[in-house]
């Protein structure tokens, strides 16, 4: 290894390591990719959380959650981000997303019989809901019919 090669190798090494450590100068929540502060699961939170989600409603009033692949692309966090952004845009955003979800649900055999999609904001205590089955208050933001299902 020549002296120039050694210098280049060390410079490249230092560059990569410094780049990986660079985000430590940012606020922990100021995340990026691929240079990250790695703040996952670190933010203090209570067990109660307000969430936006989509609900599939059938003719008998039965309600089932709409899975992430009918909202976004199969990733629950991506679906959550899409729903949050739509609710943040107000009625127009909710209506647009609701129609998009309804079109996907119409082709989803797992949700056959769904007549209506509702976009809901619910505030639940995670332990109460998961362990005891107790749901918190829910507020319907908008609803739309599933194409071809003859919803009222």
């Amino acid at each position, binding site marked *: *290894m020549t002296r120039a*090669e*050694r210098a280049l*190798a*060390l410079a*490249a*090494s230092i560059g*990569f*390591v410094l780049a*990986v*450590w660079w*985000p*430590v100068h940012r606020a*922990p*929540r100021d*995340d*990026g*990719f*691929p240079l*990250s*502060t*790695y*703040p*996952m*699961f*670190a*933010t*203090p*939170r*209570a*067990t109660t*959380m307000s*969430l936006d*989600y989509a609900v599939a409603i059938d003719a008998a009033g039965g309600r*089932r959650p*709409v*899975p*992430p692949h009918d*909202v*976004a*692309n199969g990733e*629950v*966090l*991506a679906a*959550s*981000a*899409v729903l949050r*952004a*739509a609710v943040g*845009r107000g009625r127009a*955003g909710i209506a*647009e997303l609701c129609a*998009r979800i309804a079109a996907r649900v119409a082709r989803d055999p797992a949700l056959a019989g769904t007549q209506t999609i509702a976009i809901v904001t*619910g505030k*639940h205590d*995670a*332990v109460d*809901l*998961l*362990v005891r089955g107790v749901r918190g208050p829910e507020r319907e933001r908008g609803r739309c019919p599933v194409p071809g299902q003859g919803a009222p």
Partner: protein
Amino acid sequence: MTGPLPTGLALGLLGAAIAVAIAARRPLGRWWLAPLAPTRLAALRLVVGTFAVGYLGGRFLHLVGYGAFAAADFRPVGVVDLLLDRPLSSAAWTALVVATTILAVAFAVGAWHRWLAPAFAALLLFTLTYRNSFGMVFHTENLLVLHVAILAVSPAADAWSVDAWRRLRRGRTPPAPDGRYAWAVRTAAVVTVSTYVLAGIARLRLAGDAWLGGEQLRNQIAIDNLRKHVLGDRIADLAVPLLEHPGAFTVLALATLVVELGAPVALVGGRVAGLWIATAWGFHVGVVALMNIWFPYPLALVAYAPLVACDRPIAWALARIRTSRARPAPAGSGDP
């Protein structure tokens, strides 16, 4: 002490841990450039490249699906923020994913590495950053992108590659062990370790001492599973049974910090590295069991490949293949 741990103190702890870990072996400069066989670096390229091919191929439709996301959901980060102010067309995005996948194959087999590997590193960076540009920054692909970038600018195809095969056919002798095959392996190892330490520092900065009580970890797990429940995803198998036992989370919270902030000990190598790798891998298995969140790169052990002699199993397998080819066929097994 309550509140976030001062960053300076956390950095001091980290610096001390790294210094102790490395000084236990030999002076930093000599350790960093101590000669390694070209096969060691090549093995790392093979392992990381094969993972990249499998990851991009296995998630091809999922990745292409980002082309159908609404423009209103576009929240560019990193290089995508520098280059784009609106999402790509679906066709352009699909073409990029295809090109990245094809270049991943070239990277894995070490074909025209000097030119194609940097191109692959750049495309992988852009493609996976684009995937993270729709409102949610994931942390499952950072190490893959960083390791590929390091390998792309190193002579990682001087052995066990198409390039090396072509050179041998031209009559050139295989290269000897050298420091030029060491720096990228050491850098990738330090980068792996650094990501864990950074995660530990983020935990201390955001949650402070409260993290050690275990309640924050319990709440994180509860909230994550709540999100999955209402959004129609599968909740983790162990989450609900464990949520009823808050005391267990104190142990898990402490173990998480020990794995993350103690990562530099893996640089010592040998059994110490093996022990840390086993513990860190167990941590990721725990994340699957409690949150149903998969970190494929460490779960497949690829993230830890720079920390161990990953060329040995490949060399062993190649030797077995050569031996079986050289062995004469048993009597009576020939054609009649």
